[in-house]
């Protein structure tokens, strides 16, 4: 089932992340002072306070830190139940809120290996926006 796909509104501080998403690449900020991989994307390091940040391409691989199958919810998402809301722990460290897609929701579990997929998204007016970072189970695990 296709989930609602509302595009995020990038700003000057997180644009590099969304430019990467347009190209199907997971691009993350990293502190040039202490090396910390920053999530959510921003131009300040929450660990050391430095505003010197560079950006690098991450692997897009990770494992599920927590997940829930939402079965009842109001609004547009209510038409897409059951769906999987999750935190994925990227191999680079950050725990990222997302959906698990291309899966049987009843079979998704904490610890499962997953990989990034970028899904098309549209803005309020129906125009294409930056793709969404979702994850799917790694096949054959």
């Amino acid at each position, binding site marked *: 089932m296709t*989930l*609602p*796909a*509302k595009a*995020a*509104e*990038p*700003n000057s*501080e*997180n644009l590099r992340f*969304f430019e990467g998403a347009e190209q199907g690449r997971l691009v993350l900020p990293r502190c040039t002072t202490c090396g*910390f*991989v*920053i*999530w*959510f*994307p*921003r131009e300040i390091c*929450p*660990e050391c306070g430095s505003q010197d940040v560079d950006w690098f391409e991450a692997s897009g691989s990770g494992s599920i*830190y*927590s*997940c*829930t*199958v*939402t*079965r*009842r*919810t*109001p609004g547009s*998402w209510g038409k*897409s139940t059951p*769906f999987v*809301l*999750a*935190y994925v722990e990227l191999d680079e*460290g*950050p*725990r*990222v*809120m*997302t*959906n698990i897609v291309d899966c049987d929701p009843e079979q998704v579990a*904490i610890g499962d290996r997953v990989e990034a997929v970028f899904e098309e*998204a549209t803005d309020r007016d129906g125009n294409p926006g930056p793709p*969404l970072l979702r994850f799917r189970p790694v096949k054959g695990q």
Partner: protein
Amino acid sequence: MTPRCASTCAAVRQFVHIPASFQYVGIKGKAFIAGVYEHPERHLPDRTLPQIHADVALGALSDAGLSTSDVDAYYSAGDAPGFGVLSMVDYLGLDCHYINDTETGGSSYLVHAQHAATAIAAGHIDVALITLAGKPRTGGAGPGGSGRVGGAPEAPFESQWGMSVPGGYALAAQRHMHEFGTTSEQLAEIKVAASTHAQHNPHAFLQDVVTVEEVLESPMISDPLHRLDCCVITDGGGAMVIVSEAVASQLERHCVPILGTGSFVKSSQSGRIDLTHTGAVRSGPLAFNEAEITPGDIDYVSIYDSFTITVLITLEDLGFCERGAGGRFVADGGLQAPHGKLPFNTDGGGLCNNHPANRGGMTKVIEAVRQLRNEANAAVQVPDCELVLAHGTGGSLATRSASSTMILGRSL
């Protein structure tokens, strides 16, 4: 410095760096809750939001034996309409030289009480009024969030995934179950205890006693949280009046001393969030240290209960049981008044009684004060209740949240 209470100082020092030279002054015994009021209604379609703020303000002032002309400080959060404190001070006709609109969601009112007690201890004010009101049952704002301006820096990375309020707390529950073996039956025990208490509250939104089986058979909202793991949605509100010792000594009403407070914002931890604990791991030790008591001294707790899992994790964080042992702690009626090992939420809490404006912090304090005044419903009044704890949790356990803990005593 020799710690005034070695055990609680040690508990605090696990989490907070306190310089050896630091002399903790605190607000213990400097401020008193003189009046509380919970709106008796749970559905108020024909009353305006300012009217409900006024209903509870006047109710709490009357309870204290005071009037609006006595108030010199006013506190409200994101539920206050319009320009917040400015609109409400004007509407209520107050003369205030101290105002505060700290917004931390459902815990706001405990944070306000802490700030009011601090201002009283500093000698700035004598009578603080704190109000809460909302109409989510009638319609309008949904659970969660605040009226602040848009542009939250996290929004582009969190608002695309269909996270409902229960869905976010479900993520915390799933991880707690994964790490510690907590079960749905154990979570259900929390709702059972709340419903057992609510049957004695004629104002409670839900007054029927439910069983573990009925909780587990209620519709699944977001695994593992069932409908009966979730709090109610009600109109209404509440208020409290906090006064200085000079004012308290002039009042006939039983004024309850504030013995300790602590607040803490648990962030998303630089993107490495641990979903199995809350900011209560910090707010709790701060409050216990200030009150110079330990969790074992507490006779009654009001614990924020947006969901059953909120209670279970908070009890662990506050030190009432070991980390991961919350499931066993709440089982077998452990939370049931009057004789469980730790009676909680004797009004029925947010799970059964009331969750006005989708914010449960105010009613937590109100029921704690009732217990100390021996004014809880008779069947759930804790005998010889001397020391109580009220705790609020605002925001979301799934992202960022603010915990606030307050310890109150029957007397100094």
